[in-house]
């Protein structure tokens, strides 16, 4: 069963040319899709369309076979949880308070959590290993910890779909891998459908089942990462040549800078191989 179904989707902001043109793809329940592409290609816009923040100009989006327009804000929040780019709230909310907010679409009139709600929150804290700083204010955490907290919140929302906007931004290597591991666990253990916008082609290639590569000119390619990520394709879309390594099924892309110390040498070796 397909969890997200996008057909001929087009979108443009006012006074701008269309930049998502006739995009179609499908994400099955329990699959992991990565959306990659250069800045300004419309990755975050696509994410905002998938969570109902923006309305398509043409085409359709279906969540669990129902048109996204027919969901109320509350019902949609029960289907789709979003992790946005890193930020610190104005007021000093603690980790538990932030994660508890995920239960908002399930609360009664006065908005207090039930025992079950609190249990769901505790499980999410446990799973994301954020329990040890549960009572600390969000502002006192490191970037990596904070990102885990927002993923904990998305998991506490108990929604079948998880959308993430550049979840590994500003994180060091350890935490980048940590976040992807966590997402993989959520995918496999809780059968979540995961859609992540990312700049990290290498981790995306390792972890995702499918990839949507958006170009700046409205072109896109969609398929499994092994097919989508090729040196030619990446050079075409990003305008950067890469050194590509291969170990088993995994491919690794390292960008080549124009002023790299030994660019000539690398180019030659690339040519020979």
């Amino acid at each position, binding site marked *: 069963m397909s969890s997200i179904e996008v057909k001929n989707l087009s979108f443009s902001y006012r006074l701008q040319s269309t930049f998502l043109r006739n995009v179609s793809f499908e994400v099955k329940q329990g699959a992991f899709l990565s959306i990659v592409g250069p800045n300004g290609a419309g990755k975050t816009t696509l994410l905002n369309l998938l969570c*109902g923040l923006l309305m398509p100009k043409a085409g359709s989006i279906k969540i669990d076979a129902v048109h996204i327009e027919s969901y109320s*804000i509350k019902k949609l*929040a029960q289907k789709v949880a979003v992790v946005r780019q890193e930020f610190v709230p104005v*007021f*000093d909310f603690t980790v538990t308070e932030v994660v508890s907010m995920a239960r908002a679409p399930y609360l009664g009139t006065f908005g207090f959590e039930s025992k079950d709600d609190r249990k769901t929150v505790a499980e999410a804290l446990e799973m994301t290993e954020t329990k040890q700083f549960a009572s600390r204010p969000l502002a006192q955490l490191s970037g990596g910890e904070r990102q885990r907290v927002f993923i904990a919140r998305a998991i506490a929302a108990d929604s079948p779909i998880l959308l993430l906007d550049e979840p590994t931004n500003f994180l060091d290597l350890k935490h980048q891998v940590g976040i992807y591991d966590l997402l993989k666990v959520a995918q496999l253990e809780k059968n979540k459908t995961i859609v992540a916008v990312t700049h990290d082609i290498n981790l995306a290639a390792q972890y995702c089942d499918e990839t949507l590569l958006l170009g700046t000119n409205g072109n896109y390619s969609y398929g499994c990462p092994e097919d989508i990520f090729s040196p030619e394709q990446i050079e075409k879309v990003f305008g950067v040549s890469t050194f590509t390594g291969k170990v088993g099924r995994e491919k690794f892309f390292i960008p080549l800078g124009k002023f790299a110390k030994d660019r000539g040498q690398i180019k030659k070796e690339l040519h020979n191989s």
Partner: protein
Amino acid sequence: MGVCTSVGTQKISLAKVFNGPGDMPGSNIDYEIFVIRLRRVVLAGLVGAALACSGVVLQAILRNPLADPYILGISSGAGLGAIVAILSGISWTFWGGSAITAFAFTGSVATVWLVWFIGHFTGKSQVTSLLLAGVVVNAFFSAVIMFLTSIAKSEQLRWTVYWLMGSITDKEPLVLWISGVCITAGVVALFVVCYKLNALTLGDEQARGLGIDPAKTRLVAFGFAAFVTAIAVSLSGLIGFVGLIIPHGVRLVFGPDHRQLLPVSALIGGAFLVIADTLARTIFGQEQLPVGVITAIVGGPFFLVLLAKYSRRVSWLK
């Protein structure tokens, strides 16, 4: 805690005036004074609770810890209404309320509507445009108030200044009942949206992702906050700082969860104004100070500490 404080205050003030509380009805003059005093305490409690709640809500919807109930022009609107009533010398009463009360209420409600209207139709970023609209309308009406003050006669001037400083004065029981019911209803209505305010402080996109309609929540919260503020202001004039320092003090101690912040702020706000009013009427014996002076004198230093704290926090993040 708030209730205890207010009771305690009452006892202290009673003890000062009487030799023991005059609790028997009848020809007991002490009892008459007691009733008047009680009415004042109730009024101060109501106004304090309303201002504190409104401050909590406005700080949440504007996502600005320095917002207060007057930031969106309610004060200048009410002030303009009051000064018009004072200058024109209208003396009729309205449901037991004076013309000043009625005019101030009308003025504040009209201004709030104006600010919302301008803010809603000018900007994409609703919060910023709302703030800007509030500041501009505030500045404009303040200028009009200054103009009217400059042409006022001396007796009118004294009244105007007294009103603008904010003071708790005796009101008819009917006025108290009506405003008491309205403020309580408003606070309860605000309490219902508290969990939505939590999400709203994270930003519109976040709130939406949590299943909360930001525009609708903001409209409801703003509407009720403006309503209770308008009532409070029209009863007592411009009592400053309650709506700013109480939410902050409570947030420091109890955290930012609005489901707790709002009711506690209501209690503490009410208690704070009861104490401030008690000070205002006792500190110089017969001579009564406007309570706004007391709250500002206590509030001013607090506000500075707050500013220091916030600038430090900013430097941590960098």
